[in-house]
């Protein structure tokens, strides 16, 4: 007798996603194998339990609290000229958060310098600067990850995926403002590599965001060509990975500086983002 079906084959069969060329063999096996039929029935039973699971109840006053939280955000929605220029609240919130991170980083970067190790506040200063750097590294890292996902969607889209890619326009629009701030900051602190990547990324995000409707045909082809010719996806991936490494290093430095008065100098002289 043929070997039993694997769990994964049973899962594909359950969802009707067995590849066409494998389907006859799977169905023939199930027709004559009681063990596999029992396994499939057990799987169906488990998934039925999931289906029967009651929906999570957020509590009796949820609608009131949801509105109370939402109302101020709705009041902040752009009207008039900001709406005319397409400055949605997503842009403003994203740009605002990015600006806050950049200001915090720039303030810390500017005051960082030789510190008297004997001063009572020195350890606190040594910890504060790496914390600001970590905040920026986390923010830029998350931005690069989100951007990477948009690029992956564009590169992997197949024919007929135009409607799905319409969501990517909105994601790109949310990313543009923050990208601009991070790029300008990278240029200011002398991080040319980061500035270059963010510059190329910004051009692609703008192109995606400023179009309308489905993303398909010549427009999609041109975007893909731009991404491929600049090696943009690879460069974003590499930088994202570097950001994560830097974040881990800064975290370790911060822990050392907080825990050991002797080691805080290393945290101070560890250098900037670049």
């Amino acid at each position, binding site marked *: 007798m043929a070997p039993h079906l694997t*769990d*994964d084959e049973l*899962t*594909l069969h359950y*969802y009707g*996603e067995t590849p066409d060329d494998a389907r006859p063999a799977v169905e023939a096996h199930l027709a004559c194998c009681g063990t596999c039929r029992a396994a499939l029935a*057990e*799987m169906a*039973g*488990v*998934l039925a*339990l*999931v289906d*029967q*699971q*009651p*929906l*999570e109840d*957020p509590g009796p006053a*949820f*609608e*009131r609290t*949801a*509105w109370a*939280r*939402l*109302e101020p*955000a*709705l009041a902040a*929605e752009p009207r008039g000229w900001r709406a005319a220029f397409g400055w*949605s*609240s*997503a842009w403003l919130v994203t740009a605002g958060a990015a600006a806050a991170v950049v200001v915090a980083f720039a303030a810390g970067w500017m005051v960082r310098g030789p510190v008297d190790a004997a001063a009572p506040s020195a350890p606190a200063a040594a910890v504060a600067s790496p914390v600001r750097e970590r905040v920026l590294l986390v923010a830029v890292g*998350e931005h690069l*990850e*989100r951007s990477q*996902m948009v690029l*992956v*969607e564009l590169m*992997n*889209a197949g024919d007929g*995926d135009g409607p*799905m890619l319409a*969501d990517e326009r*909105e*994601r790109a629009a949310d990313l543009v403002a923050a990208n601009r701030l991070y790029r300008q900051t990278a240029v200011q602190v002398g991080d040319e590599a980061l500035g270059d990547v963010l510059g190329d990324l910004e051009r692609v995000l703008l192109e995606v965001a400023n179009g309308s409707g489905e993303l398909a045909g010549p427009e999609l082809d041109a975007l893909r060509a731009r991404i491929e010719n600049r090696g943009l996806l690879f460069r974003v991936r590499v930088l994202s990975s570097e950001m*994560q490494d830097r974040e881990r290093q800064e975290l370790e430095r911060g822990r050392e500086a907080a825990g050991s008065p002797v080691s805080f100098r290393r945290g101070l002289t560890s250098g900037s983002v670049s």
Partner: protein
Amino acid sequence: MHDTDQATVAAASAGDAEAFRTLVERHSRYVYQVAYRMTGSAQDAEDVVQDAFLKAHRQLGRFESRAGFRTWIHRIAVNCSIDLIRARRHRELAHDPADLESGAAAGPVSSDDPLPDRLAFGAEVRDQVAAAMQRLTAAERAAFMLRHVEGRSIREVGAALGLKPEATKNSIFRAVRKLRTALAPLVRSGEGATFVAEG
């Protein structure tokens, strides 16, 4: 409810704040439940409710009434959940592979527990299903929910989550394996019994 949505959406689209509030009060609980199913987190689900209604507010002009407001906000909520999961994916902790086999944390009803009659069985099963779902990683949960509950194809799930086809399949396979490991004993012990939810 859905028949009156049309008039309410029209009023909200025209700038009537109270009309939009009505839509929020009518559908926010549902949106929360959709988001919680996707994210498994109360805090994340609340954030998705905010994001989804903000997006709906901005896009009211594009809403086509023939689709039904609930269907429309459902799609927005799922997309917002996906965005949140995608943004956090790289920072979640991976589960210990040993959990896959042990199933101890979400195992069957132990012999020390009160004997589950058909009515009490509901609460025990609910707790164990909930515990099993919580043991999925964010990516596994999202992929599984999109495939199993939303009915999207594996390819569509991958596109939504930004995963390659093999990675998508693996996320769904792992989710189903974990659920089977944790819940198969319940299925076996309850064979022939009817699952009765507590009233």
